[in-house]
């Protein structure tokens, strides 16, 4: 069995502790982040205000009036050293997506860059099952790991000033979905009618860190039909 390196416990201000498992984007490193994140969700440590999982670390915000830094570290060590819970594998969330055309203006570039056809690129993108490594950048923006290497494509040289909400993009070996209109530099390959962020909903954010996700190809008619449903 491969022995795991002990995480680093870093001070992030007087109310923050960063448990850092590595410095790279890596499935194994992220799995350790998710394990700790879920453990602390199941068995909250008194004095912990919230936790924020990222690619490679977990931020633990705490109330220093209720718990000290050293005590917090030892409580986390007690949790973290437990074997990872096999967990209840949730069904992937399905993101219905129209690929190419006006909805995915960079799809042809992504295919050309990788020396494959547009159809192959779409097929690779819908076949994979992705993991939400973290949410950041904007409300509900999922950074998804698990993109097949054969469609990995670097970011745009010059970011767009406006990327429409629902746009599905690729940046290096990651894929993601823009929840709101925003500037952005990812290669846009398609668009979903689903709202990943809707402030009017009881749960405004669709995806959570650790969720699994897959994409489903739809045509334009279905896009508008689903979009109408989402607006209701």
């Amino acid at each position, binding site marked *: 069995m491969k022995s795991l390196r002990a995480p680093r416990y*870093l*001070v*992030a*201000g*007087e*109310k*923050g502790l*960063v448990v*850092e498992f590595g*410095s*790279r*984007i890596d499935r194994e490193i992220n799995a350790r982040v998710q394990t700790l*994140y879920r453990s602390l969700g199941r068995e909250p440590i008194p*004095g*912990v*205000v*919230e*936790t*924020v*999982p*990222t*690619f*490679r*670390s*977990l*931020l633990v*915000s*705490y*109330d*220093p*009036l*209720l718990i*000290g*830094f050293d005590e917090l570290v030892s409580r986390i060590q007690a949790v973290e050293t437990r074997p990872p819970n096999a967990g209840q594998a949730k069904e992937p969330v399905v993101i219905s997506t129209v690929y190419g055309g006006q909805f995915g203006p960079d799809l042809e570039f992504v295919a050309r860059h990788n020396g494959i056809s547009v159809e192959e690129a779409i097929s690779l993108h819908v076949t994979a099952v992705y993991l939400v490594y*973290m*949410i*950041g*950048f*904007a*409300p*509900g*923006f999922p*950074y998804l790991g698990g993109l097949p290497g054969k469609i990995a494509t670097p970011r745009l040289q010059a970011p767009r000033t406006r990327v429409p909400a629902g746009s599905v993009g690729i940046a290096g070996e990651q894929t993601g979905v823009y*929840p*709101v209109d925003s500037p952005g530099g990812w290669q846009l390959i398609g668009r979903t009618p689903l709202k990943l*962020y809707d*402030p009017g909903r009881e749960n*405004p*954010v669709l995806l*959570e*860190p650790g969720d699994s996700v897959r994409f489903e190809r739809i045509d334009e008619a279905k896009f508008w039909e689903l979009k109408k449903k989402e607006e209701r």
Partner: protein
Amino acid sequence: MKDEEGTGKESGSDEFLHPSSFILHPFSVMASIRVLSPGMMTTVQDLGRFGCQRLGISPAGAMDAYSLRLANLLVGNAAGEACLEITLLGPRLEFTAPTVFALTGADLSPALNGLAVEMWATVPVERGDVLSFGGARSGCRTYLACRGGFLIPPVMGSKSTLTRATLGGLDGGPLKAGDELPIAPSPERRPSGRAPSAYRRQFGQSVIARMILGPQDECFTRETFRLLLGSSFTVNRNSDRMGLRLSGPRLRHRGSADIVSDAVVTGAVQVPGDGNPIILTADRPTTGGYPKIGVVITPDVDLLGQAKPGDEVRFTAVSLEQAHQVYRQYMEGFDRFAAVSPGNQPD
């Protein structure tokens, strides 16, 4: 949803969770603050929305939580009730019912019906009274607390406005002309009160911000720390509720200026490739890909919330132990103030 301190004692009043509860208070329908003109940037803020940063939702909340807490305590609210945060150029506001308010924070020359009003003190108003503001004398942000708070529903545990996400406050954005902000009717006369001078703050043109170094201090050279702690920085014009952008000597990285994104906290000082530090504040993103050289301690983040473009910022380093001691004293100060504040006097 947990509040900032995780104790539950300071979350906004849950009494008026739903707009339909107004029906129970026939007079409250008319009790409001009517926005005659909105000012430069006037938003509803409380102590922030905690517990959703894992979903990419920034905490928002008052840029100067000290002043917000004092305004609330003066009028007898829970310290974390929502206030109006008024930025530099103030609004014109009409009260449509009698109430009591208090103004704290920046001195933006407030006047009631054209007559100067005292800050850091309770002010009774009658129906039809108009609050307006003149020039900025000191600081950047004024807090207006109304007895009983604002009757708007909290979103995910907070009334704070996060404009980037169109969340909270009044329609998720700054106040607009014609808006009506519902308030609790408060016709009863309670003792008026003034904050003792030790609690009143005046804001100069220079802030000394104490910081704890890290979490990515290893990304910077020794020379960078000498510059960071020995120089003066200037607050840039493009600063806002997301962050204070500073200019000064260029802070150099040991290697690349990019890290794999991790979470950020309020007060974090991130240094992008151009070497100009940004102090992340209330509306900051939840994650970031630039190394953080240090994190400003909470009481000093409040002071930075009052810094204006052109003001000076200097940094000093403190240990985690010192920071915890300062934080304890900071929080105890509010308890002491609450014990003597007029809102807590028996009727």
